[in-house]
């Protein structure tokens, strides 16, 4: 055997080893999934769906806190190196309230969760082995509470393995967040800004001890006032920053 021949053999041997390891890994992975569904356990399916829901929910809540109820920067004011959305804007002729109402945010979360489930989580999902999974039509409902967000998903799922099958339905995800509490404070600030022309954070914080409000007033180039509010939960670091122009 010459040197070139030996190298070729080693290369082939390496490929074979890699292939065997890969096949073993694949087979073992399959076996793990197989075991999970033996006896028709529904927990893996339930965990999988609820994890997907929570991913989408968490991202939505994060965005709504970052952009004051919006998906991103909209009509915004530059503040400390980033942009904060205006929720009250006076263009000189009229003053508009730009807050998105809670039911609208709830519907947006529901819509996003449904899309995420359909296109990212369930589309082409493979639970391994010969497990077959069928999904029915989906209905998602979201409720923003002061310290929680509830998402309920009505999604009939049929899991079949061989001659055995189970049905899973009704998923509930409870996400701990003070977004609802912060949102309520933001809304109160906006209402006072529009109806009273000002807002007193001190009194508000005395009455609502779970909220901290930082108010920063600036004068714009056109001599109008721009107020930036940072509304923070005292229980954690969740915060909404927004601007008011009046």
């Amino acid at each position: 055997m010459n040197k070139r021949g030996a190298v070729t053999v080693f290369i082939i041997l390496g490929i074979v080893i890699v292939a065997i390891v890969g096949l073993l890994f694949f087979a073992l992975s399959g076996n793990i999934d197989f075991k999970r569904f033996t006896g028709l356990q529904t927990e893996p399916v339930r965990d999988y769906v609820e994890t997907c829901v929570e991913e989408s929910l968490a991202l939505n809540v994060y965005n709504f806190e970052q952009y004051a109820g919006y998906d991103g920067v909209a009509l915004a004011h530059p503040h400390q190196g980033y942009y904060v959305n205006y929720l009250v804007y006076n263009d000189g002729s009229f003053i508009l309230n730009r807050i998105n109402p809670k039911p609208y945010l709830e519907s947006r979360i529901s819509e996003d969760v449904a899309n995420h489930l359909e296109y990212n989580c369930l589309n082409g999902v493979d639970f391994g082995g010969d497990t077959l999974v069928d999904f029915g039509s989906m209905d998602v409902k979201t409720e923003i509470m002061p310290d929680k967000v509830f998402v309920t998903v009505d999604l009939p799922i049929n899991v079949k393995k061989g001659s055995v099958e189970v049905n899973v339905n009704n998923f509930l995800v409870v996400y701990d967040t003070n977004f609802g509490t912060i949102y309520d404070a933001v809304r109160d600030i906006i209402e006072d800004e529009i109806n009273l022309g000002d807002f007193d954070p001190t009194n508000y914080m005395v009455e609502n001890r779970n909220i901290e409000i930082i108010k920063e007033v600036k004068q714009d180039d056109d001599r109008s006032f721009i107020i930036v509010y940072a509304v923070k939960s005292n229980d954690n670091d969740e915060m909404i920053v927004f601007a008011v122009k009046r």
Partner: protein
Amino acid sequence: MKKIVAIFMVLIFLVSFLNIKIVDAEQSYCCGKFAPNGQYCLPTTDRNECDPNQESSPLACAQVAYCREVCCMDNDGQCHSNVPKIQCQDQGGTAVGDSCSISRCEEGWCIIRDQCVGKMSSTKCQREADNVNASYDFDTSIESLQQCIQEYSPNEGCCVTSSGCSRTTGRDCNEEFHPGMLCSNNDLAGVCTCQKEWEKKCGRDGEDVYFLDSCENYENVVGVVYDGFIHDDESDKMGKQGDCNIGGNNPSICGFKSGDYSCVDMNCISGKDFTVDKIEYTDEWEITNKVVTINNKMLGGKTKRVNGESWCYFSNVGAVPSGANSQHPQYSAGSEYYIYSCINGKVIAERCSELRDKYCIDDSKDGVNYAKCVDNKWQDCTTCGEGFTNVCGRDECEGLGDCFWNSAGVHGWGLLINPAGHDTPECWPQYPPAFKHWEGAGQEVCETCGDGMFNRCDDDECWRLGDCSFDEGMSTTGGIIWGAAIGATIIGGAHLLPAIGVKVGAVGEVPGAVWSGTKGFLKWLFGVGGAEGTGTGGATTVVGGGASAGGGASGAGNLPRSVIIRGG
């Protein structure tokens, strides 16, 4: 010169042309919805940025109707001021007017099931309450959660009013409220004059023994160390002197014993006192805190009955002529079937029915006695043996209902073949019924006594038929007078029911007296009154006493008892 003017004009033309182009480049549009970020009523120079599904206009946003500021009520019922009309509609809200200063949008604290839910509009509060199918309170005067909790708390405290201090819930206090505080607290010494631990009483649920202050406000369970505050949690009360234990092997409950309130045995034991809290009878009189001593007779001949046990009691004392059969008292007028129960250390009497239409039977389960009332089916007993040659047999008799077959007796023609037999009918009611004899009822039943060709009415048969009286040898007139007097006694007097066995005043467990009426029974039982009905005790005075009582009570002395006089 003309040339210069012409060049100038050309220049002006060109400049003006340029101006037009500049103006055209700055043309602004008002997007109903700005596509890139989803905001409403934003100006843009590029109309393509407007959401094609929404309105847009070359006018300023302040000038277009769809951007007009409205008060928008969202799906939750919450109102938002100055929302662009197009946004309100697009996001599923309802434009409820230009301003949110309307009652539907008025914000206040929403209280559902005594819980402060939050500050919101009245519409939203109502929806929240509807969701849980509960009533709600909506209070616009509440400023904070703390104030809401204080004013709507279901927890109790001291309510200070101009008329005094009382322990109430925050919800029920319309004036100064001190949550969790007893009215005898030293901090309220200037406003309340209540002295702490003034007396003891059973708690409002009757289970534990509580202290009351001098203003008659409940304080804490006896044994809880006084610190001026309410301690009603189970953990505060557990193991304390006044914490009675209803469950367990030795159940106890608050009761009056040896002149004081304490935890007493819930079983009924002979010799033990219990207190009847309050018994009212019309507007005439009432009994409160009457102490009754339990005796063996009350317990059906036993010395102890456990809590929850019940047993039959028959008030078997009546007017019995001397020498009469010893069984007769249990068929006397006024006798009634009762269920007696031992409930929380008290003996409770409950009558089966007014006229012995029901009788009581005992049953037992796991060694504990349970009594129940059943219908008395006596009506067909005397039809036994009807027919020319029919002889009443045991099966026929007992198949007719609650009937008693007298094996020694024969009926009708049967006497011919058994001349030594008893001369009474052999099928009688097992539980002789009662009649409203003062209204003339029962006459037809009593008149059947002695029916049959060879039958003769005797006292045994007569009393067995029901509330019938027998008087051998008395004249018809005398019998009527005697019976009338008995009837009067029944109406005007009281049951001489030895249920509780208490002999108070003139009332006594005296054979021969005939008593009737719940009012009289209660008076006898608790030893009150005496002028009305209760003065009629005594066998020898039953006639006269009954007559006077009848006059005193309801004039029932005119109502004769059904009387059958045979052989007189």
